[in-house]
């Protein structure tokens, strides 16, 4: 095998030459952003961050600033942008409440490994620790939810800190990095130049997978009779989807893509089994559970995928490829761990496997593939089109009507998110942007705005719930201000639907505090009051019309789909259960025989 593939190095983007010389800390920050190739960022000014905003207006530069309505919106927009482009997202808030409002998106970015730079103002150095107005211990608050954080204590540190912060955010396992800047230092003057070199002796992400481990993995795959590729969001972060595609086709075995990986491998590919886990398909879950080998690629054995760990894929050996050594053996013991950049590891593994095939050392997987194919054929996702409008129907119409368009989807969190994952077809990487790890309701609206700003010409559709939408709907003002035509499709069932589903199934139908009402607010009037287009669909007959009207309007748009509140997301593996305890609609229970 060839152990020396060209390395990949996920690009530490080329830095841009910028103005140097005497300037304030605030201007220096803008020059740092320019040097890192940042063209857009999101934020809200306030007392402690005023010097930065003053510099924004005072000096000539190339960084566009988007004024949002709530710092959480800024964070999620930066995430939407980062997830859609693979670049680092930048968001800005003032001290105290500005910073604390950023906690949710930063925690979200941390769990979903999204590269962010978070810039917060801080009270002047001499007031730190005095409980000054709008003072919060920002670095302390953010410490457990960032990859790294900085409190600037000397204006001359600004260039080095930003150089390091961008490097840390986008390399290795990406993540958010916070830079907290006291007001007096933003006003201080110093001699600025942007450093080329980085000195981070404690930060050296592994690049190359160990060749012997790669060889062992290839041999394990060759020997396996029931292997499954278990693909997670790490493949997207590594920009290794082309390499994954080549590998999957070389090996020719079923591919399960987690929620975070949707789109990393084309949903319409014959090998793609799509979503596993709590609301995954029967065939994806059965394939994983009956597998004798899990080829894990940038996934982390999250509880929403595995259910009860002891009962998960009990007969499978595990190959675990990840950039983060700490994921190896964290939840599931790996038989063959490979730590490295997937852009290097996957081609190496492909070559090693093909060498074995050339030597005719591959055990047949035919029977297994036939079995999985039979499950897939017999047990697709299903729903019944009786009674009120069903979210699944709306998803199918979105999928079919827009099949030939380049749509970037975002979602909120809950039932609609799971139905989107089940029913939409995503064929390209970075075209399905959802809050996976943290499960942040309210993610969809700002994430869609951020993604649309990255790609103004694409169609961006936020599949949202009514509960989610109300958490960040103020950002419609941002969308209208900047003419961002993302569509916000509210699957409005008038309830906190997923919580209601759990209450119905596991809490004796006691619907405690989950009723929102589907007519409060009136989403059409609400949209109109923001100057956006408001549309409503109450029956199946309305659906195609509103979708096409929204897509063709190229205006910020809200669609109120009045959907059935009784409908539940199935199949479902209850929390903490094994996938053999999967439950389904009473009318869709004929599969038990086939189960694991």
């Amino acid at each position, binding site marked *: 095998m060839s152990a020396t593939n060209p390395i990949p190095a996920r690009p530490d983007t080329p830095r841009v030459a910028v103005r140097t010389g005497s300037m304030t800390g605030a201007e220096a920050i803008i020059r740092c952003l320019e040097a890192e190739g940042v063209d857009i960022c999101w934020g809200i000014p306030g007392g402690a961050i005023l010097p930065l905003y003053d510099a924004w207006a005072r000096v000539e530069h190339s960084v566009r600033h988007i004024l949002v309505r709530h710092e959480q919106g800024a964070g999620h927009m930066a995430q939407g942008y980062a997830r859609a482009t693979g670049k680092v997202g930048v968001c800005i808030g003032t001290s105290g409440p500005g910073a604390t409002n950023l906690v949710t998106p930063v925690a979200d970015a941390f769990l979903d490994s999204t590269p962010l730079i978070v810039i917060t103002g801080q009270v002047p150095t001499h007031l730190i620790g005095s409980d000054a107005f709008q003072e919060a211990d920002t*670095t302390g608050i953010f*410490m*457990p939810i960032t990859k*790294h954080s900085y409190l600037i*204590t000397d204006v001359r540190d600004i260039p080095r800190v930003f150089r390091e912060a961008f490097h840390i955010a986008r390399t290795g396992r990406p993540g958010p990095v916070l830079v907290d800047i006291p007001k007096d230092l933003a006003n201080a003057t110093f001699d600025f130049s942007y450093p080329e070199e980085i000195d981070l*002796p*404690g930060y050296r992400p592994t690049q190359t997978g160990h060749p012997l481990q790669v060889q062992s993995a290839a041999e394990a795959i060759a020997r396996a009779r029931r292997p499954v590729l278990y693909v997670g969001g790490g493949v997207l972060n590594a920009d290794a989807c082309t390499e994954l595609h080549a590998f999957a086709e070389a090996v020719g075995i079923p591919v399960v893509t987690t929620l975070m990986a949707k789109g990393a491998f084309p949903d319409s590919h014959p090998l793609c089994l799509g979503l596993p886990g709590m609301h995954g398909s029967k065939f994806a879950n059965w394939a994983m559970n009956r597998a004798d080998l899990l080829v894990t690629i940038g996934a982390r054995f999250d509880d929403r995928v595995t259910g009860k760990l002891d009962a998960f894929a009990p007969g499978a050996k595990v190959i675990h490829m990840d950039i983060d050594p*700490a994921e190896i*053996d*964290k939840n599931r013991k790996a038989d063959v761990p490979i730590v490295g950049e997937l852009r290097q590891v996957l081609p190496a593994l492909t070559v090693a496997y093909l060498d074995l095939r050339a030597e005719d050392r591959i055990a047949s997987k035919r029977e297994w593939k036939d079995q999985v194919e039979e499950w897939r054929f017999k047990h697709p996702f299903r729903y019944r089109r009786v009674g009120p409008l069903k979210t699944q129907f709306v998803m199918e119409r979105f999928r079919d009507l827009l099949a030939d368009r380049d749509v970037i989807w975002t979602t909120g969190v809950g039932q609609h998110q799971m139905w989107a994952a089940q029913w939409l077809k995503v064929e390209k990487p970075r075209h399905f942007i959802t809050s996976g790890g943290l499960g942040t309701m309210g993610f969809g609206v700002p994430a869609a705005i951020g993604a649309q700003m990255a790609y103004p010409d694409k169609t961006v559709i936020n599949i949202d719930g009514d509960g989610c939408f109300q958490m960040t709907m103020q950002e419609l003002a941002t969308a209208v201000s900047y003419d961002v035509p993302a569509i916000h499709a509210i699957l409005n069932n008038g309830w906190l639907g997923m919580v209601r589903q759990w209450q119905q199934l596991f809490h004796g139908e006691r619907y405690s505090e989950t009723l929102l009402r589907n007519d409060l607010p009136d989403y059409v009037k609400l949209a109109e009051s923001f100057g956006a287009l408001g549309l409503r669909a109450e029956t199946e007959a309305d659906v195609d019309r509103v979708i096409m009207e929204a897509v063709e309007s190229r205006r910020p748009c809200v669609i109120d789909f009045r959907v059935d509140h009784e409908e539940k997301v199935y199949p479902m593996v209850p929390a903490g259960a094994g996938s053999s305890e999967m439950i389904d609609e009473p009318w869709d229970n004929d599969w038990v025989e086939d189960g694991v």
Partner: protein
Amino acid sequence: MHHTLSVLVENSPGVLARVAGLFSRRGFNIESLAVGPTERDDRSRITLRVDCSQHSIGQVVKQLYKLINVLKVNELTADDAIERELMIVRVTAQPADRADLIRLGEVFGARVCDVGPTSLMFECLEHPDKLHAFEEILKPYGVKELVRTGRVALRKSTPERTRSGRMRVLA
């Protein structure tokens, strides 16, 4: 199962909070933690005593390495490291007991550092197991106050080879 970790870190603001925060966030139990300067101004060494009944030591080490300011993590075993801890203890000492106590102290290598009308204060720099033994010996006399620094440790230059684990180093 307890493990001693020697963690070399950059001497930057907040580094101790990062390490301590990591342990609380991940649910790792710290039995003791000692931090101090090293031979280099820009480095500190944190010696951690970790209870790994719930988590593997491997996971603890890997999580520590994810902290940007952590440079090197070594696991130290009793066989290949020198481990020390300082204890200061005030023990009840009626005049009649003083001589006994002072002699006991000598056995444990403790030094009398303060004498009161009805008490003695010892300082003792020793292996933590030995400190524990000393404390047990003092208890019948009445331990009034006690403080320990937490253990610090350094790897030996030539690790003594144990013969199938039978030989134990009592520092």
